[in-house]
């Protein structure tokens, strides 16, 4: 039997808005994924270490403070440095449309903005993240 998709939901930076992260963590769990939630105030280094230790297939970053332009690329770089760039990184939060393109350019696979349903996010994960061998 194929193992379940494992997702790390992470809250980087200092921002405490965890409503979205918790809803998506619970939505993913209800959809049958294995979900690990980091809790708040994680540095990019802590997030990457947790992702590798937990052997996840994807990382969902949630950020609402505006620090995405620094933090998202930082997570991608650190993953590359650890030889773990096969872990898919996606994100969500308060992210202006004009920033989405540059974040995708830095390797973030998808950005979910306000108004996304749980089902849409679940469907995207099923289509884009496979359990790693």
């Amino acid at each position: 039997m194929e193992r379940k998709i494992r997702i790390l939901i992470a809250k980087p930076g200092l921002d405490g808005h965890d409503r979205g992260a918790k809803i998506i963590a619970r939505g993913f769990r209800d959809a049958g994924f294995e979900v690990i939630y980091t809790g708040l105030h994680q540095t990019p280094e802590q997030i990457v270490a947790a992702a590798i230790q937990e052997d996840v297939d994807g990382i969902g970053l949630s950020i609402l403070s505006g620090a995405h332009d620094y933090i998202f690329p930082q997570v991608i770089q650190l993953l590359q440095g650890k030889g773990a760039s096969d872990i898919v990184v996606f994100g969500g939060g308060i992210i202006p449309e004009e920033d989405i393109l540059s974040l995708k350019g830095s390797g973030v696979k998808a950005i979910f903005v306000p108004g996304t349903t749980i089902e849409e996010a679940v469907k995207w994960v099923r289509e884009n993240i496979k359990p790693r061998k």
Partner: protein
Amino acid sequence: MLKEDQLKKVQEDKKKWGGDLSKMLSETPERLPRFTTVSDLEIKGLYTPEDIKDLDYSREVGFPGVFPFTRGVQPSMYRGRLWTMRMFSGLGGPEETNKRFHYLLNHGETGLSIAFHYPTLMGYDSDSPNARGEIGKCGVAVDTLKDMEILFEGIPLDKVTTSMTINPPASVLLAMYIVMAEKQGVSKKEIGGTIQNDMLKEFIAQKTFMLPPRPSLRIIVDTIEYCTKEVPRWNTISISGYHIREAGSTAVQELAFTLADGIAYVEAAMERGLDVDDFAPRLSFFFDSHIDFFEEIAKYRAARRIWANVMKERFMAKKPRSWMLRFHTQTAGCSLTAQQPFNNVVRTAYEALAAVLGGTNSLHTNSLDETYAIPTEEAVTIALRTQQILAEETGVTNTIDPLAGSYFVEALTNEMEEKAWDYIRKIDEMGGMVKAIERGYPQMEIAEAAYRFQRQMDANEKVTVGVNKYVTDHPPITIWRMRPEIEERQLKRLQEVRRTRNNGKVKECLGEIRKASQNGGNLMPHIIHAVREYTTIQEICDVWREVFGRYTDPGYF
């Protein structure tokens, strides 16, 4: 409220109406299976005198300015003085924010409210590794007294009151404000304002936390004790439901958890040996104004009534001022949409109207672009004008508590009060709010409500225009961006301050803070001493993190 024969007549008429209604519904049913508030509270199609037949006007509603203050805390309400128009502002560095303060005051704002950037909120300096990517983005960067001095240049502190949304390092920012005012020639006896200083709701909802609950509470009581004696016009705490609601709670949960937090603070201050009537008059509150119009109005009315009873009956407060729940309101950020953002102006206007009809004492109205970033000058002007139109044009300020006596509003006020008491009793049974937080109880209740709402949105059982109904494309709007040179300037200034201050004195001050932290003396005089020497916010907070330990998020979901 009605005589028995009048009530009987109402009941008979209602029965007849019910019959007519059933007949009609069998042909044309109602639009929805359930009619509910945004909090999923079920609302009936019609309220009549029967719904408030037991309401005792004198005991439960009464007169404005009179116990239990259901109709408002002042006898004349807005006929005497309008609510304070207080726009939450902070952007980039102190220079940019000072400019915004002047702009808002010049456009008719009547009180200031500071939004700090995340590093300040969490007790870090701008050059901390934890501040990377965050400088000046969600508010203004304040590292030392120097920044506070720039922030208030040209602002008369004997005339304007200032609210500061600051929690773990609230005492430090208050100390900076006191010293800055003193340098402007305004003594601490004269300054007026508020620090949020409400850590319990941080653990529950807003999540800017630093120390565990118990030492956090100790520092809060230090500020209450100090201000009661030394800064008499200062609101020592703003007991906040706003963040609880924004995290996804229902209106009843917001009401109940906020008042339960208030109870915990009163108990903590009384345990310190303070007289309730000395400090209670300076406790203030802060609520959300969400999109469900009547539910919000009922919430404010119920809040005043519950608090008055709590203070009088439970804590035996004697001064009427101790019984009064005075509150600030902010319209609901979480009700705004990134989609079709101009619609947010309309949402905010309805929410502001609910706050005013509910008797708020102070109000912030959100700007249309805040689902993207800190508001632009143009957007914040519309938000401020929304309040001014309410105050000057609509006529809603002419009479006090105009919805009192509405069968629906009174019944809903009663219902919210009863449901809030159920929660408060439950938290009492757990041993109070600190214990409830340690068990994760309010956190899980809120997460559950937030998840339920999202599911209802996803299933189109709840509608947000532009999100799950009437969806259309909208052109992008111009948003405020943080300029990179602001960050450089902030870092340079911080270095300059560290280089030019008396570092020996700073070390001494930090030693005093450490000693008082360990020995239990009131910290405030030591903090004031330290900030006067330009000790940074992080230098002080690091001492506390060492002495008391850090609180880390248990990550309930």
